[in-house]
């Protein structure tokens, strides 16, 4: 029981980074970022390359992963999404672009890093015992960093000038422009921040589970599950979704063999969406 709670909390904290990132991008751009899992994957592989291949400290790898994935996100917004959305009359165009970007990033990663599962040694050694449960020190560090980052993002979005402009942009683009906000710049920053959060999540999780070039689709799927549970575009909903998925997974792995857990999660999700299609905190669509 204690083990399930510990595992659930650790998973939830990491998933919260992923869900927050995709929610920021969805809120500001109104695009479901199908490439989100690929950004996570690139974050992990950059850490692998910096610390296992180049031999620099893990912290340098995490910083490099965050920065490079953040820059990839900004380039995606500036070079692809902003252009397509300025021309396209339909939302589907941006969605297809996101799917295409996912394939592009995945194949670029395959070319650069190969298809092997990559991992790095834990950044800290040792195991704590909490009652009947084991808590590897490395996972505790990952948990604490994730929670600190989630809090930092919440503070940024709610209490800074730029964060306030991001929230405003998500609600009314025209009115935000009339406040003197450079909507293009804020979109680019928001996309970059959302991407960087995916990158850092991958950078942290590679020391726990490892990462390979094909993991993106599975991570994107998890991100979609979380925002479907919580409600698309709502920050509180993203966090709730992360908690729900993290604990569902932890409970599932404790009770059932391997793949049955996600079968149950998907069935439960379908039933949930039949009852509440807008998610826990979302507004009804349309």
């Amino acid at each position, binding site marked *: 029981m204690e083990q399930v709670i510990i595992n659930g909390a650790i998973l939830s904290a990491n998933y919260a980074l992923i869900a927050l990132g995709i929610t920021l991008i969805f809120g500001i751009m109104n695009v479901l970022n199908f490439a989100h899992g690929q950004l996570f994957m690139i974050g992990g592989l950059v850490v692998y390359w910096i610390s296992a291949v180049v031999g620099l400290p893990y912290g340098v790898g995490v910083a490099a992963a965050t920065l490079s994935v953040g820059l990839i996100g900004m380039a995606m917004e500036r070079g692809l999404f902003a252009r397509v959305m300025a021309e396209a009359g339909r939302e589907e165009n941006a969605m297809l672009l996101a799917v295409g970007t996912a394939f592009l990033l995945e194949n670029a990663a395959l070319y650069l890093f190969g298809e092997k599962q990559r991992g790095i040694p834990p950044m800290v050694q040792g195991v704590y015992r909490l009652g009947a449960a084991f808590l590897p020190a490395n996972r505790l560090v990952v948990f604490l960093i994730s929670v600190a980052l989630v809090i930092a993002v919440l503070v940024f979005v709610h209490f800074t000038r730029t964060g306030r402009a991001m929230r405003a942009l998500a609600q009314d683009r025209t009115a*935000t422009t*009339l406040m*003197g906000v450079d909507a293009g710049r804020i979109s680019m920053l928001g996309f970059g921040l959302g991407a960087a959060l995916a990158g850092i999540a991958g950078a942290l999780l590679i020391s726990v589970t490892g990462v390979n070039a094909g993991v993106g689709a599975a991570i994107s799927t998890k991100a979609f599950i979380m925002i479907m549970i919580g409600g698309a575009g709502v920050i509180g909903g993203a966090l709730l979704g992360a908690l729900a998925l993290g604990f569902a997974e932890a409970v599932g792995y404790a009770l059932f063999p391997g793949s049955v857990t996600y079968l149950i999660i998907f069935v439960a999700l379908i039933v949930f969406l039949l009852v509440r299609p807008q998610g826990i905190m979302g507004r009804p669509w349309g």
Partner: protein
Amino acid sequence: MAATSSRYFEARRIGVSYDRVTALSEVSIAFDAGGIVALIGANGAGKSTFLRATSGLVALAGGEIWFDGQRLDRIPAAARVAMGIAMVPEGRRVFPLMSVRDNLLMGAHVRRDRGVARDLDVMLDRFPRLRERLRQAAGTLSGGEQEMLVIARALMSRPRLLLLDEPSLGLAPIVVRDIARLIVEIRRDAGTSIVLVEQNSRMALRISQYAYVLETGRIGLEGASQDLLNEERVRELYLGG
């Protein structure tokens, strides 16, 4: 055309098209600082389009706009706010999920000075209803309160030119009176120049000094508001006989 303008605000023969449909053509409007100018006319006459062109939400198809000696029409919309132009859009457009306080702070987005906190306080003294609802989501306010909020939000940028698009739309007559009084006070207290677009022509002509009547994208008539109030054609078409 002259490379500058001697008027505080001058739109010279401006035109705007939406998807090749002409919304404004050859419209010239000019005024000096510190007055209220009204734009009246039927639905679709181009009143809102004129404001959107001035704030930069739509690009000109022709003509020039000058403000305080600077060419305005090539400057991006967001940068015009920093030059002192604030627009209250039609339909209020509060940020519905943000608190009243955050809405007001959004209005001060372009300001980097230390006076923002004091101005916020002044604004809340002026609008006690907003102070009572400071932490409430703006989407939960009544229509009249939302109109107060968007006007207060625009004032937070300390504009020199305030563009108001149909502030009385959908409001009860008693609230319309409050809004009219507020517009007069803003001009009196801060010397702000105001362009008022209104369907409520009587109210607009009563509180403005000068007015333009737009008819299908062109200026049909202009003159001192007092004169237009007594003009036969204006009375018949816009003031209900």
